[in-house]
């Protein structure tokens, strides 16, 4: 229960609506992993937003939203996968993470679907420029209009005119070029505050990381509306790997003296060492793990009250945490001491240091509502089947959820082969189905299923599909390892999530190998045929335009100028005589 309390508290801390606030939550996870969750929130009143009077809300993004008539925006950049078995419940119940690659969905104000789609294209193209990502590749084939999976988080005055569009780029590799524009949107721009810890090298070396941008309108009961932008970066770092210095990143074998050997083994000796599993929590400091120091508080955040406690560590109370700084800092404890928050000094660096410590109490990890895994079965170039296995770990409550699958058009599922089976029950768990079939080269398949999974049961969804054969120009120009299929999105409906964000989880993306021609072969063929054509053309051209005569048939004409003149005359004569 503890982590839920902590999460609730953490959310409650953030609920104070001030114009700009930021927070970093650190939580050590098992197997020397560390969850770092950054959150930045800025508000702008809707009147000043409309008058283009931007203070904390970034102007670049604000203007894009106005231009594309976007009322609510969610953008995700993710790498890696969340290991639910070891790390437990997802941060923010999965509401602030995306599938591998880039995921974008938005509510766009438009009169009809056509206009909504053209505004959606405007939005993806401009965001593409802003975030240095290939978002412009989200075209009609990659866009879907989900019906059950997403619901707006904000307060919208006229929801009837809003259109929800959703697109994913599972193959997009998220890297530092996406982080830089992300940091530029922050008021402190990574120079101070918790964002000063965000370093591309460490962020993209994480086992899992996701960056998100969420823009939504929030209205008070008295009718005051404002536009809220939440930026978050969640990552799970491998402490051992992150602690390695940047100038020596190679994990060379440690000297034997530095390895703790199990001396109780009978074979233990100078050349034989069974490495002991370290039971103690590893030592780490912020600077080591993030590769740079925390440069004090961002001056734009509150200096008083709970919003000024920007760095929080969620550890058992016995864990030693030392703060090293030359400036003034404050430590506050919440949730029966399992949450320690720090008010950062302004203008001076601060470092948190956790020594190696043998722990007696572990941190309780929340159980996620569902576990999901998805894989392609079968082999060969013609067909395959997809199998998604979803498990409900709860012993008491059934879970209702929506399963969204957006498939590319060249993966052609057979709906009649769609089976959903719950272990130990013959009842059909599918409550509702929404299906929009693919149209070749125009749009992909869109399946949404509403399902129920009883307590402790495992649900298996399978369906067969055919692989289409693409035209050779439809293959991407780069190395072809297969096509990525976007992760399935699962939204947990019941038990309901405590806030409007909802609870989500996503499967990993899939690799769909399609029959691929050997592209070097047509190249060779083209070269060969061109050569043959050139040879043939040359010969035929010669035969057509030249006149071949035997050497003895040519009338002997003397050399010199007279000879040339004579030859000319003869030629002219020959032409007339024809």
């Amino acid at each position, binding site marked *: 229960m503890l982590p839920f309390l902590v999460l609730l508290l953490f959310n409650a801390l953030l609920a104070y609506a001030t114009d700009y606030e930021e927070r970093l939550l650190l939580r050590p996870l098992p197997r020397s992993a560390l969850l770092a969750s950054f959150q930045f929130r800025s508000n702008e009143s809707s009147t000043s937003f409309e008058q283009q009077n931007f203070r904390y809300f970034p102007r670049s993004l604000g203007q894009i939203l106005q231009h594309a008539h976007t009322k609510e925006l969610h953008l995700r950049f993710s790498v890696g996968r969340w290991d639910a078995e070891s790390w437990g419940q997802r941060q923010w119940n999965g509401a602030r993470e995306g599938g591998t690659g880039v995921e974008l969905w938005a509510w766009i104000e438009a009169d009809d679907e056509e206009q909504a789609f053209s505004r959606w294209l405007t939005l993806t193209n401009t965001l593409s420029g802003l975030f240095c990502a290939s978002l412009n590749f989200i075209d009609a084939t990659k866009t879907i209009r989900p019906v059950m999976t997403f619901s707006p988080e904000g307060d919208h005055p006229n929801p009837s005119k809003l259109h929800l569009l959703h697109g994913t780029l599972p193959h997009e590799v998220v890297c530092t070029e996406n982080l830089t524009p992300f940091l530029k949107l922050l008021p402190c721009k990574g120079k101070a505050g918790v964002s000063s810890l965000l370093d591309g090298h460490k962020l993209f070396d994480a086992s899992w990381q996701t960056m998100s941008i969420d823009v939504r309108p929030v209205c008070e009961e008295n009718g005051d509306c404002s536009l809220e932008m939440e930026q978050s970066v969640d990552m799970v770092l491998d402490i051992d790997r992150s602690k390695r210095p940047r100038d020596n990143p190679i994990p060379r074998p440690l000297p034997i003296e530095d390895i703790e050997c199990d001396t109780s083994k009978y074979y233990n000796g100078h050349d034989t060492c069974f490495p002991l599993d370290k039971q103690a929590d590893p030592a780490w400091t912020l600077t080591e793990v993030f590769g740079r120091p925390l440069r004090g508080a961002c001056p734009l955040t509150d200096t008083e009250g709970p919003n000024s406690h920007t760095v929080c560590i969620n550890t058992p109370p016995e864990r030693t945490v030392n703060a090293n700084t030359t400036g003034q800092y404050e430590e506050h404890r919440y949730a029966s001491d399992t949450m320690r928050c720090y008010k950062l000094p302004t203008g001076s660096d601060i470092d948190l240091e956790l020594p190696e410590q043998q722990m007696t109490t572990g941190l309780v990890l929340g159980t996620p509502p569902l576990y999901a895994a998805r894989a392609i*079965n079968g082999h060969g170039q013609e067909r395959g089947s997809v199998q998604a296995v979803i498990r409900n770990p709860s012993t008491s409550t059934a879970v209702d959820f929506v399963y969204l699958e957006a498939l590319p058009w060249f993966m052609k599922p057979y709906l009649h082969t769609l089976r959903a089976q719950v272990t130990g029950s013959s009842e059909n768990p599918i409550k509702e189905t929404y299906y929009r079939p693919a149209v070749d080269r125009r749009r992909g398949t869109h399946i949404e299923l509403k399902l129920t999974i009883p307590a402790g049961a495992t649900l298996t969804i399978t369906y067969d599909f055919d692989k289409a054969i693409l035209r050779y120009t439809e293959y991407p120009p780069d190395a072809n390892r297969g096509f990525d299929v976007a992760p399935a999105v699962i939204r947990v409906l019941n038990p309901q999530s405590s806030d409007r964000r909802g609870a989500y989880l996503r499967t990993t993306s899939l690799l769909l190998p399609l029959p691929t021609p050997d592209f070097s072969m047509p190249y060779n063929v083209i070269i060969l045929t061109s050569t043959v054509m050139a040879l043939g053309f040359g010969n035929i051209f010669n035969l057509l335009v030249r006149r071949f005569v035997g050497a003895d048939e040519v009338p002997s004409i003397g050399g010199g100028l007279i000879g040339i003149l004579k030859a000319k005359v003869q030629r002219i004569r020959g032409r007339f005589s024809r």
Partner: protein
Amino acid sequence: MALLATLLALRKDARILKIPPYLSAFCIIVGVVWLLILPLNEYSRNTYVSENALLPGQVHTYFTGSEHNVFRAYRQEVAALAGSSVDQRSKRLSEIFQSNNLKVATQKYSYQASGRNISNENVYAVLQGPRADATEAVVMMAAWRNMAGDINHSGVALVLSLARYFKRWSLWSKDVIFLIPGDSTTGSQAWVDAYHDSHSPDTIEPLSIKSGALQGAVAVDYPAGPWGHRYDKLHIMYDGVNGQLPNLDLFNTAVSIASGQMGIGCTLQRMWKHDDSYQERLQTMLRGMISQGLGHATGPHSSFIPYHVDAITLQTVGDGWHDEMSLGRTVESLFRSLNNLLEHLHQSFFFYLLLQANRFVSIGTYLPSAMLIAMNFSITSIALWVLSGRSITTPPNPASTSNKDKQEKEKADVTVVKKDSAVAIVPTKSLETVERRLSLPLTFVAISHFLGLLPLYLFNNTHESYLDPIFYAILGLTGILPFATAAILQSFRRPTPQESNLIQCFSLLLLGMFLSALATLNFSLSFLVGILTTPLTFIRGTKNKIFAIIGSVILAILNPVVVIRAAVFFFGMDLRQVLVQAAEGWHVWGLWTQVVVWLVWWPAWFAGSVVVSGGLFS
């Protein structure tokens, strides 16, 4: 037009029917000679790494120092498990993987083959690549027991210590799966079947953890005990089930890393000594062909290849000065190369014959030899078809100078053929057409093919202890059956010469078709079966007892069952072991060599034998 008319006229010429046997013989001779010249420098090529992304041997390897101490400890741990139960073993191996922060799962499997129950458990761990998105994976494995049945002490220990070492690197762009199958062939088969969800769920457990599409697999076979053993060379095994081969790039990468970067010599097909002479190249190639033709699994890697996962096994051989760390570094470098792959291995050859570690023959060069041999059957078959449509006595050649008087007598027996304004005088006999009686030949050929199902069923579904008697029973039965069949048919005055021609015609037609199709899938099997059935082209139904006896004896020797017995004797193997392996192959690996033997080779032999031995009873 004139040429066409000449050709059409030639078709009627009796001499044309004399050509096919010579043509067939020519095809066979060229086919065999073709194969024999392949080891020459002019017809083979040096291997080269075709996929640029692999960059073999371009990275520093760091698997040294204290890793060696850890490796020795793990080897002790493995040795301590030697006598323990499967459950205990799996538990301890899982613990070691888990202590290195890897996700571990186990898989139980059991197979039934020739009354034996093969059951064991696989242990595997998944290292989720920090740069990976769960779409691709590579497999490193060491079977608990190698092909010889020895415990793979150092191999398993090496996988355990490399798992620990790999976990520290952040550069993996694919998941790395560390697999310890319970035994060399069935364990990896169960695992890879379950990975692609094509297993039978009653006896094989599904995998609880999966990763992405498999891009490659490398198995390590190093059975040195807890005190180690320094080896001389790496023996690279690459044959897959049913003669499928991994992409040549994987093999080349392994050779290039081992010999180029680590200085370890590489060898293949059990050629422990290879001085690159013609004989040794030829011997390597023939050994490779026999191994490919048999289509059996040669190591834990074999089961992966039918799933289009390129795989090899590295086996340590001999006494030398290379230690476990150099093998570890070879594997490390090999996985670094595989990690570089942007695409599935596709650049290089999938069909090749290797002559030594860095010399090969590609399919375009070797395929004609098996095709020529398959073609000889088709040629004979067509010739027999034409022959069966002719009347038996051929008219004497009017241009012939001998037998003048006889010719005078028969002079009247001609017909005048008129067409448009042309008039021709043709011997009446050559205008006669003979009706082909197809019912007996077709029925006979169909029945003989169906008869092949019987031994196929018996060998694959008999208890181990009855396999020997069954084999000898079938040996005796197939020895007698052609004579018995011929005797029975002769008692009905069948088959007529035309019918025996047609029986041979259909039988050879099918043989030629099957073998040429097979040559594109399993060249070696097609070639071997083709060579062993060549006499079928030349034997004919004859009234001459001496020819019939000679033909029958030759065919009795080339009886598939006799050939199998002789091969088993020649290679010094145990017959029962071979039959058990074959049955295991049928039930576990999906081997179809038996299908070729019993449904292609045996029926062709049977039809030929019946036709020949018909002469004995006429």
